């Protein structure tokens, strides 16, 4: 479970400060598929960065499964993120000079998983997203939808409980976007928590819950 209590994020120094988040409180349950929506500059990506441990909050508390992540040191926070949180990006963030297989096994290599185990997990993950026959292909040989599936397979392969998706359908057409949302829904049904930032209201409706953020605050 993710618990966010009155988090504030300020950018800049004392002379020129920007409040990206102005006191957000939020609880996300395990296995939930949550969509975060809001206009540009509302603080959605900042919130995602904080949940994903890519950024630190200025004030407040951020707790994940009894661990007070906001009070961890930098290195411990990185370690926590590695073992609990995976990302799916808008532009897929695949390494174009590595095959789909090599892209999916990246988080496993980072975790130090053995070769044989890696192979098993990678192929299983690719199979779940329907991309097992494309494991030798390079990203530039795949369509946008296929690349995003590979990216999701990578997030799955890491085995992490929380999957953060930053505009996962932003670079895709409607049909492919729907396919991706369905994949994310299936992942959530298996017990993982999926948090998705999106501009697309039509797709956001498929989430279990939609959270609207505006001007650094949750719009109730």
């Amino acid at each position, binding site marked *: 479970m993710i618990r966010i209590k009155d988090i504030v994020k300020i950018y800049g120094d004392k002379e020129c400060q920007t409040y990206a988040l102005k006191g957000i409180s939020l609880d996300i349950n395990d296995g939930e598929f949550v969509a975060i929506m809001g206009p540009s500059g509302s603080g959605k*990506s900042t919130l*995602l*960065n904080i949940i*994903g441990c*890519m*950024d630190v909050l200025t004030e407040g508390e951020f707790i994940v499964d009894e661990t007070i992540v906001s009070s961890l040191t930098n*290195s411990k926070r*990185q*370690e926590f*993120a*590695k*073992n609990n949180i*995976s*990302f799916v*990006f*808008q*532009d897929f*963030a*695949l*390494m174009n*000079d*590595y095959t789909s297989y090599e892209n999916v096994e*990246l*988080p496993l290599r*980072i*975790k130090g998983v053995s070769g044989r185990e890696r192979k098993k997990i990678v192929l299983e993950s690719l199979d779940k997203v329907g991309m097992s026959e494309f494991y030798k292909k390079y990203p530039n040989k795949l369509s946008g939808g296929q690349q995003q599936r590979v990216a999701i397979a*990578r997030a799955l392969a*890491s085995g992490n409980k929380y999957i953060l998706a*930053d505009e996962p359908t932003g670079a895709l057409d409607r049909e492919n976007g729907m396919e991706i949302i369905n994949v994310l829904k299936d992942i959530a049904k298996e017990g993982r928590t999926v948090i998705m930032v999106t501009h697309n209201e039509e797709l956001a409706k498929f989430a279990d819950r939609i959270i609207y953020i505006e001007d650094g605050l949750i719009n109730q």
Partner: protein
Amino acid sequence: MKKMLKRYYRDVLTGVLMTLSLSFTFFLILNSIRIINLINDEVKVDEYVKCMYVSTELLDAETEQDEKTFEELSRKADLFEILNEETCNVSLYSIALNSKVREGTIRVQYVVSYNESLDRKVVSGEMPKADFTNGCVLITESMLDATESINDKKYIELNGDVYEISGIIRDVSVGQSEREVIIFAGAMSKEQKTKVFSEKTGNKWKTIHIGSNVNNPLNVYKSINDKLNKYGMQLTSHGGLSHSQLEESTRYMNSVLQPIMIFFSFTNVFVVTGIWVKKRLRECAIRKSFGATYDMIMVHLIKEMFKCVIVSVVIGAIIQFVYLRITDNIFYIKLYINKTSAIVMAGVFFIILIIMCYYGKYIKKTEPITAIKRM
């Protein structure tokens, strides 16, 4: 190959340019190591060989020295061409007196040096001269181009002095001994020597071909000596540049060329490494987003960088080999794998490591999500 270049350098053209750039850098470094080693080797010995010609002649133990006149030898062995009978005979006698006798064999040895006006790779040196006749020399056939004819006599200028030529020693000699060994070293190319040798002997004689390399004289000396040893023969005398000339060339190398090579190499490596790291920032951001620490990313990059470096070192060494082959016409390469080489190459790798750590600041600053979105 294309995939490999893209994998390590992110695009093919960059990969080719960076590999060539690094290879040229390592060619310069390897060449510097080679020159350092050559100079170190040469400075250790007071005398060394620049170029030599060796022939053997088997004599009876009872043969009188003075019977071995130039004329007789020339009739017997077609070794020499007499230009001045009077001075030539005396020249040979002087050489015979100075040479050592071992097991019934007189080794006629001398060091040939070439003038730079011949447009060959030459340095100044000593010529065999007759004690009883001043100003006369024996020259090799290869030096004929540098001679001048005045009043039916031939002259050559060496080391600033003019000498009359008393005889010409053929570049090819045909031995009369049971040991059918012919060695010739000179400024002729391998093809020319083979052609002349075939004409003279009809391929009946066993040969050892040795190239001359005035930039690598010690190796030439050692190599010829090794080959002669197999036939029970040995080089016993040599001569060459004076120590002061060696010191001068060493000073020149150290003061002028070395710093330029090192500066160029360092700058090149610095720039190439920087470009290489920056081209991989997106990959680093992706790795970071999946929990890779700065140390893990740097280790991964360093491993990949060293793969590229090793490929470049090999290409640089190949370029050096081809370069030496073309410029010095040498037929063999001594691999200078010694303490100096190991220290220099380790130093280069260490410098690359430091440069990569310097550029690691870009990796540290990279915020994964922002960086991935921008790239």
